[in-house]
């Protein structure tokens, strides 16, 4: 045996007489981490087959050959609060400071398809996002913003088709062709049932609406991403990185199967599917997660018959983990966010949101959000990590971990299959139980000091928090309700009633609903009224209670 070989073998043996800080080192997902990784750990990997070059199948190293040398990721801060006017001002502020894409946070009533004056909307107006109850609000939200040149992502799911309708109609009122506008609607209902819980309708009609948007989008709004399949919320609900990866890709494949069942051609809609991941604290595990995600997606889409290279590309947005932020010593969240953002960049993200330091306390203040944006700009412009593609490619540890994440993902695919597929697994509470279990384990580890969170259970300080908190305009709700009343009074009543009754009839049948929804939008039917008709026809989802 050569001297070199011996060294490799030596690294494999964990010394019995050496003391280390812990008896076992693990990733956040509980994957055991060895002291040292060597070529032996990746000796089963064939470079050309399993890794390859950036921009080529299986796209492990990135979806483009040049990545950030060609173009930086889109800096897209999630923002929205209060009225359309207030949020419009925040968008302009962010654009002035170098943000390159917009991302709309809607308030809870909007996410559930209720108008601000609905009884269940009590106290919720503008709190977690901006209220958009009609085309009128959308017009105000984007007034003075060049939506022919900037892309917009909208975090909207249950009523996604209708809110997208507001966006398309607003663009056309400004004289912008729907074929030119670009952006994303989240439109991912499966993860709502699994984790985020802003669902409206039961699974079947929800899936129908989503396939309607795929079909309509590929024909009429070709630059639009009609879905953003989201692991972010799965992670925020307490999943591990492995669960986030497995459940998200599983959901993605379920959408593909439903669209194909409708008769859509995979290469017509697959290029417009996009993804959304979380960036949590475990730096290398996060990077491995993004790399594994790209390879699994490319392989699975190929198996399903995709031919166009673009159909195989997993494009994704990343948001740093809101749930990792601490209310204690909020300034140190800037450091957490920096590391998380760096993992997303090293993992090859197409777009990024960096959280603000004050988000465990309230919605971000202007200063906090500016620092968060500057964090991305420093990574992009100063750090040098953007000079080469997938700089961690070939790292013994990163490649081994990427493989491991893929292996664990396929184990989950099998378990979901044994539940009868994604929707039966949701109905049985499989995902919800797995996530609740992981969330509880994580909290217990912190409570029992087996896991340290700086400022929470280690290096604590007892001093009052001294950062400015965003305050809402108390009168906003009243103004919004008055605007709604005026809108309902002033619109063409006959036109409104005709569009609503035509939508009802179409919903009862099986036509694509998008053209009918757009008619409702143009007649200034409100979100609550339009969703209300669909609620009557489709019914509402009630989740099983699991903890």
């Amino acid at each position, binding site marked *: 045996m050569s001297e070199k070989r011996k060294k490799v073998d030596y690294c494999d043996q964990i010394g019995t007489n050496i003391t280390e800080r812990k008896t076992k080192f693990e990733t956040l997902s509980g994957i055991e981490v060895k002291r040292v990784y060597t070529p032996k750990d990746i000796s089963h990997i064939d470079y050309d087959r399993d890794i390859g070059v950036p921009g080529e199948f299986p796209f492990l190293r990135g979806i483009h050959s040049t990545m950030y040398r060609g173009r930086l990721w889109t800096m897209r801060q999630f923002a929205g609060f209060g009225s359309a006017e207030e949020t419009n001002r925040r968008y302009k502020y962010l654009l002035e400071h170098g943000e390159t894409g917009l991302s709309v946070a809607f308030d809870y009533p909007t996410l559930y398809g209720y108008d601000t004056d609905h009884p269940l909307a*009590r106290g919720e107006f503008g709190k977690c996002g901006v209220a958009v109850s009609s085309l009128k609000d959308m017009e105000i939200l984007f007034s003075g913003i060049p939506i022919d040149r900037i892309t917009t992502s909208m975090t909207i799911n249950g009523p996604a088709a209708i809110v997208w309708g507001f966006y398309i109609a607003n663009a056309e009122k400004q004289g912008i062709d729907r074929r030119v506008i670009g952006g994303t609607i989240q439109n991912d209902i499966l993860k709502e049932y699994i984790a985020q819980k802003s669902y409206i309708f039961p699974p079947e009609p929800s899936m129908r609406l989503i396939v309607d948007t795929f079909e309509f989008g590929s024909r009429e709004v070709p630059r639009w991403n009609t879905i953003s399949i989201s692991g972010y919320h799965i992670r*925020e609900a307490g999943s591990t990185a492995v669960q986030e990866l497995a459940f998200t890709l599983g959901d993605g494949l379920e959408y593909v199967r439903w669209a194909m069942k409708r008769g859509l051609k995979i290469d017509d809609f697959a290029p417009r599917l996009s993804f959304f991941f979380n960036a949590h604290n475990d730096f290398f595990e996060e990077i491995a997660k993004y790399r594994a995600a790209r390879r699994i997606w490319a392989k699975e889409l190929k198996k399903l018959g995709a031919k166009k290279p673009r159909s195989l590309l997993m494009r994704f947005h990343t948001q740093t983990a809101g*749930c990792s932020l601490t209310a204690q010593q909020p300034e140190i969240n800037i450091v957490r966010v920096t590391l998380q953002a760096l993992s997303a960049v090293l993992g090859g993200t197409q777009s990024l949101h960096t959280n603000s330091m004050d988000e465990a306390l309230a919605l971000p203040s202007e200063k906090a959000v500016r620092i968060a944006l500057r964090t991305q700009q420093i990574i992009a412009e100063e750090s040098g990590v953007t000079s080469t593609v997938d700089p961690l490619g070939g790292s013994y540890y990163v490649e081994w971990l990427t493989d491991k994440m893929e292996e664990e993902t396929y184990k989950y695919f099998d378990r979901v299959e044994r539940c009868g597929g994604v929707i039966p697994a949701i109905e049985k509470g499989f995902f919800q139980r797995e996530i609740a279990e992981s*969330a*509880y384990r994580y909290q217990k580890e*912190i409570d029992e000091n087996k896991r340290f969170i700086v*400022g929470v259970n280690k290096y604590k300080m007892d001093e009052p928090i001294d950062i400015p908190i965003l305050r809402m305009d108390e009168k906003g709700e009243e103004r919004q309700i008055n605007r709604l009343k005026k809108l309902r009074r002033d619109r063409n009543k006959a036109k409104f009633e005709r569009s609503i009754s035509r939508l009802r009839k179409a919903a009862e049948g099986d036509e694509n609903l998008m053209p009918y929804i757009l008619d409702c939008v143009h007649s200034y039917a409100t979100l609550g009224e339009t969703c209300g008709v669909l609620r009557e026809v489709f019914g509402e989802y009630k989740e099983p209670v699991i903890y």
Partner: protein
Amino acid sequence: MEKKIRVLIAKPGLDGHDRGAKIVARALRDAGMEVIYTGLHQTAEMIVETAVQEDVDVVGLSLLSGAHMTLFRDVTRLLKEKGMGDVLVVCGGIIPEEDVPVLKKAGIAGCFGPGTSCEEIVEFIKKNVKR
């Protein structure tokens, strides 16, 4: 045998962030309490109705959306109206520091923000529950 402490964990409003509520529900159960969890999207009326039906000693409210000032105070007001003013009410979620005194004045005994350990909540309930 001593009667177990009965706790209702409730999610008022439209907020779907139930991670904290579920963790606390499990931690209280593991600490030997009887826990009823309402599930999501409860109105104040629904929560108080369940509290009455289940004859609970404690109501735990969880909310991240920012609607706590409206919805939590609706719950404490209705509890008093139903003759359940003795029930210990605690809350958690994203609650700005300056809202805490107002909530305490409205009858909420404890506010547990991010970073609270489950043990702190268990101890607080054991110490303050009236029965």
